[in-house]
């Protein structure tokens, strides 16, 4: 494993005052002297610095950078205020845009993606044994009131959908606005091959009023008693 290079190191400025190591292969008799010699042999001068000037081009480029920096800070600092968070804000409190017209399918899809998709999945097929599907599900597609009731109060217990049993919890989203509940159901009833009619905000309002005294989530038995499949 001996690929040791015994050549002189390049540019070795250390002087031996006449003693050239490579020619004299014998080592000195005094090991201490040898040690000192080895130290001198392998040590170079301490580092120095020349005093070449800074290239002018560099100074020019840096000037450009500093100019850019000033410009950038002037434009994008929101006046150095503590309550401006966006570089394009006109200065002061972020201005709310005028609301776009409410499109139930678009907003309903947003709500679905944000809240429902995690369980019922992006393709509406749910998770076998855990979360029921919505695609083709009579629980969604038949009675409108039933679907609204489930969303407002939630449901807990055993149900059967397309031959499979599920025994879970549907959490309520009663704190949503009426129009959002209507929108998400409208979206679901039109997605993944479903083809049922939209649900109106007024219907949601009416159903909410009807069931306002109920505190707990539905059980499937109760809700099927009111609105059979």
């Amino acid at each position, binding site marked *: 494993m001996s690929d040791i290079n*015994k*050549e002189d190191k390049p540019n070795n400025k250390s002087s031996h005052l006449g003693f050239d190591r490579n020619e004299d292969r014998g080592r000195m008799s005094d090991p201490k002297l040898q040690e000192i010699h*080895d*130290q001198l042999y392998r040590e170079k*001068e301490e*580092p120095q*610095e020349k005093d070449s000037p800074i290239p002018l081009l560099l100074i020019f480029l840096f000037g450009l950078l500093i100019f850019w920096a000033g410009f950038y800070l002037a434009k994008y600092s929101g006046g150095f205020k503590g309550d401006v968070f966006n570089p394009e804000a006109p200065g002061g409190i972020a201005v709310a845009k005028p609301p776009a017209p409410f499109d139930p399918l678009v907003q309903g899809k947003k709500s679905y993606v944000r809240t429902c998709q995690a369980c019922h999945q992006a393709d509406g097929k749910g998770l076998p044994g855990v979360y029921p599907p919505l695609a083709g599900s009579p629980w969604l597609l038949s009675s409108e009131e039933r679907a609204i009731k489930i969303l407002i109060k939630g449901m807990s217990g055993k149900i059967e959908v397309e031959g499979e049993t599920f025994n879970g919890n549907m959490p309520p989203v009663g704190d949503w606005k009426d129009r959002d509940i209507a929108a998400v159901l409208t979206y679901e009833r039109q997605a993944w091959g479903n083809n049922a009619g939209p649900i109106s905000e007024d219907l949601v309002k009416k159903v909410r009023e009807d069931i306002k005294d109920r505190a707990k989530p539905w059980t499937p038995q109760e809700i099927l008693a009111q609105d059979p499949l």
Partner: protein
Amino acid sequence: MISTTSGTIVIENEVESVKTKLKLAEIDASMRFPVIFFITSALVWLGIGTTFALIASISLHASHFFPNWEWLTFGRVRSAHLNAMAFGWGNNIVFAVAMWMMVRLCQTKLRFPWLMITAGIFWNIALIVGIAGILLGQLTSVEWLEMPRYVSPILGLSYTMIAIWGIVSFLYRENSHVYVSQWYILAALFWFPWIYIAVQTMVIWFPARGTVQSITNWWFGHNALGLWYTPIGVAAAYYLIPKVLGRPIYSYYLSALGFWTLALFYNWAGVHHLIGGPIPVWLISSGIVASVMMVIPVVVTAINHHLTVVGFFDHVWHSPTLRFVVFGAMSYTLASFLGSAMALREVNVVSHFTHATVAHAHHGIYAFFTMVMFGSIYYIMPRMLKREWPSALLISLHFWFVAVGITLYVLGLTIGGWIQGLEMNNSQIAFIETVKHTIPWLISRSVAGSLMAIGHICFFIHFLWMFMSKKTAGGPTLFKRAGEEVAVK
């Protein structure tokens, strides 16, 4: 023999030179135990940190590989890795290399070495306790400060002892010229306790309200890199490149410009970790500006080094020290340019929150800082042990495994992270799909990390071997030159 007057000056210079070198030999002897202690500690922590790194990396694409132990969960292992590497490997090796350079450049012997060793022992004990604390769940979840707060006073005390010795050595200096490396070391020694104490106070001990914590956190986190590890890396490059080549640094003025612009701009760059985040926009824009202005010190240093080395690249290649150090110095330039680019909003909107950030961090701390430190160890140890490295082959293996490893690491995660960012910004692609697409890149990181680990093992073996070998000076161990005969020992 020489007989003219200029010849007398030549002899005087020669005599001065020999005197200096004898002095350096004495200084090295005085530093022996502290330096060997700190280098050994650093290498132990490097090994520990590498182990945690592999576990963390594999956990992200094959978590079933490990038993489901709580202390091995990704959040904790990853934090243990960072702290072992930063404060275990990083700080110990900084103490060794910075102190060694400082006393050499000040041409003064180290006084009271036992004090430094004591400080070092306390430092390492505090680290063991701190990292155990992390694994046991007492981590703070503050990035770069995960160790539980009860170890920070001990760390602070140890550090102060070491820093004071650095400054004392400087005040006792016996030469008048203050070389550029000394500026960087002095600055780093002073900056680190300030930023550490400030962030411990405002984020951990007396937490500020709201995102003031985050700003302070990242002012510290980035400054740990920019005002602590980077200056020592740059100082080492500035010392070793001219030293090994025997040529002077190209320009004192470039050195000075580089130092002061680094001091000015690096301080403000830390906010780029929070672009798009809940803080006032002027702070974000200042951070972006400072990050881009970092181009100045980086270019200046690169030019200075390059014009020192130009024409002697084959010497660089054949010296183990310089091969590592120059790899490191070039990586410093590249990593900094990429970093400045990543701070621009147009780029950051893609790269933020992705694995590209992790790639950039390792580009700086490993491809630059760690490689320069490896080179420094290859230079320092022969002078401490008065022996040469036994095997050029092991040095070569070490180099290739870690060089290829870190290159693969940075490339893999930068590309993977960039794709991840682009897909994350496209809401048509489900989030879980973006995650699945990162998996091949995460696997490439584990492969890269394994290569680096093998390189480290070669290094550890070689290091131990050197202690046991009897090979005294027969000239320094260099890489073989092509086409030359190998001398028979």
